[in-house]
């Protein structure tokens, strides 16, 4: 038998289960896999060695062991970027081709090598993802936590100073206050409107169209959405012969009021900004809640109706309790998204006029002021704020696994 990699999953000790009697249908696969297995084993070993060597070089360079930390790769110009369209697409094709080749090599060697222990198999399937997550998420995370205790260049250890700065200086206190407003208002309002709308249009004739209209902002980039709303808030000075071009101010004028600098006059400008986020997230809330409402068993609704429940009372006593898990999911998800929102503030005000939030301030401090220490501690604050949600989610996952 040449098919040596059919590991028996029932034996977790890694012992390979070699087929002794091949069913008739498997003859083709058996033939396909004969020959060359020794060479593939070699390929597998080489691949493993290359990955291991890469990991070692990375670790050495990451922890500043010379000479790798100053090691500069002389990339050819075409490799980094190209100014022509054809060049760009060529580069893209090149990248995809390389990727496909590497994946094919890994899979082929796992499939064809003559003796593949279970761990090598797992490594073949999980290795690429594992390497990337370790390099791109785990390691940077630890590094950022460390950096948050250092000064702006990452040279001197300064303890909790960055955090003290954030929590005591008034400009950062405003940032924290704004973030809190966003995180409280956006999830509640968008979930409420999403739920209301889902109930209102449920099982009506134009349901699909009605939902589509609310859902559409989900497809638009936050930058695009910000520009749409910036236009709504556009302000023209209140003078003779000057017409308002923004809808919001025109409405004020029609109502006989003075036009308002929506994005500049604080503290209300934060609320005008977070309306954009509500506008986007309501569609998400509506979709999830609508599916949950449709999943309420008809006999429950029917029974309640026979008991004389209608309208608001039906909503209060049947609909809301039945979709509670979905409500929690929506609230949590929207909270997470809102916490990290950066694009809206960046595009609409750039964080000026006391509208900045933690995610935006992180960007400004790190990549505009080049105060890496302060930027890192802002990122860590974001991270700490999501930890309870992570814990909650993991517990939910465990519950779900148990049910399964």
């Amino acid at each position, binding site marked *: 038998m040449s098919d040596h990699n*059919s590991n028996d999953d029932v034996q*977790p000790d890694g012992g390979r289960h070699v087929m002794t009697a091949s069913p008739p249908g*498997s003859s083709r*696969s058996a033939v396909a896999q004969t020959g060359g297995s020794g060479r593939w084993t070699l390929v597998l070993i080489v691949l493993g060695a290359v990955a291991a060597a890469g990991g070692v070089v990375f670790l050495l360079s990451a922890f500043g062991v010379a000479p790798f930390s100053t090691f500069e790769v002389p990339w050819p110009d075409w490799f*980094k*970027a190209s100014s022509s369209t054809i060049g*760009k697409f060529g580069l893209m094709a090149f*990248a*995809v081709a390389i*990727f496909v080749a590497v*994946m094919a090599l890994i*899979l082929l060697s796992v499939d064809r090598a003559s003796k593949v222990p279970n761990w090598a*198999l797992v490594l073949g*399937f999980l290795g*690429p993802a594992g390497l*990337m997550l370790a390099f791109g*998420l785990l*390691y940077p995370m630890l590094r950022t936590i460390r950096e948050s205790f250092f000064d702006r260049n990452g040279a001197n250890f300064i303890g909790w100073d960055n955090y003290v700065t954030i929590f005591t200086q008034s400009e950062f206190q405003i940032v924290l206050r704004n973030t809190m407003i966003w995180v409280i208002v956006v999830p509640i309002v968008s979930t409420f*409107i999403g739920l*209301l*709308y889902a109930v*209102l249009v449920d*099982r*009506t004739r134009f349901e699909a169209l009605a939902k589509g*209209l*609310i859902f*559409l902002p989900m*497809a638009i*980039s936050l*930058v695009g959405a*910000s*520009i*749409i709303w*910036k*236009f709504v808030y556009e302000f023209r000075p209140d003078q003779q012969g000057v*017409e308002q*071009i923004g*809808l919001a101010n*025109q409405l004020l004028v029609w109502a006989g009021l003075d036009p308002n600098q929506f994005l500049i006059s604080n503290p209300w400008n934060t609320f005008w900004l977070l309306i954009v986020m509500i506008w986007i997230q309501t569609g998400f809330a509506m979709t999830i809640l609508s*599916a949950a409402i*449709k*999943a309420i*068993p*008809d*006999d429950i609704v029917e029974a309640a109706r026979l008991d004389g429940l209608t309208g608001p009372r039906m909503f209060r006593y049947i609909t809301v309790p039945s979709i509670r898990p*979905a409500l929690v999911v929506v609230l949590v*998800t929207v909270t997470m*998204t809102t916490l990290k929102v950066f694009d809206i503030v960046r*595009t609409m005000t750039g964080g000026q006029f006391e509208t900045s939030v933690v*995610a935006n301030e992180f960007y400004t401090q790190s*990549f505009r002021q080049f105060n890496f220490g302060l930027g890192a501690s802002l*990122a860590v604050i*974001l*991270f700490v704020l*999501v930890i309870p949600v*992570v814990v909650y*989610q993991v517990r939910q*996952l465990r519950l*779900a696994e148990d*049910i399964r």
Partner: protein
Amino acid sequence: MTTTPTPPVPTGDTRLATKPRKLTKAERRAVEAKSKLSSPWASGVAIILAILWTIPTFGLLISSFRPERQIKTTGWWTFFRDPQVTLENYEEVLFGSGTSFSTFFVNSIVITLPAVIIPVSIALLAAYAFAWIEFRGRGLLFVAVFALQIVPLQVTLIPLLQQYVRWDLNNSFWTVWISHSIFALPLAIFLLHNFMKEVPSSLVEAARVDGAGHVKIFFRVLMPLLVPAIAAFSIFQFLWVWNDLLVALTFAGGSPNVVPITVRLAELSGTRGTDWQLLSAGAFIAMIVPLIVFLSLQRYFVRGLLAGSVKG
């Protein structure tokens, strides 16, 4: 209504209501008749909400076709009194020397395609391992990957950028591709794993008895069944990457040969915030691709959303 099989009552599961129930035609008609009873007051509120949600986009869309002078002096609602249509704004924003959005549009495409293909393939492999290969510590590792979903990207940006600079790779497509691929993995693995688990294990067992190895099972048995799931996540990732600002701005912000359209649009809003003829047309050029993808594949997208989605 009595013949309707009752769907399972939602549990605490985050993946609740993955399969909305399909009503038969007769049932739907019965339900529709019932809903006629709902008050006109309710439909009124629904219509007002729908209008409120549509009008901002509609206003900018109209404006993008109006001549510059008109946009800057009169509101878009006056368009209906005095309709003047031009494509000049689009021409200028696409090919004008100060904006040349056509270049950035190309950049967006070049960034997005590999940033969808790579993480989806890698996540498929990992999801397969988590779903169908038995090994020590599998549960713990999976929970770890699941938890990574929620880690804010901001936590990773400074060290990653420093690393890229050390390798002299910053401001290239490579860093943007790699970063997007990495950030997509936790959610992709989680979603695809859930879909893979739903494949009946008897199918996999049967293939195994036939002597198929893991690679063969992966390609021959699972892949065909997973097409909807892959489509769902791919759309998700496509929209995410195309619409992203933070990652592109951080890793490629300095290079006009690399930055995508969103970065340029945000920049334009900062430097030429009153040039509405450029901003309106530019915004719609940036939106057109995700809107087409979204409208044509909405079914898959909603499925992906319902399968539980939290993304950092």
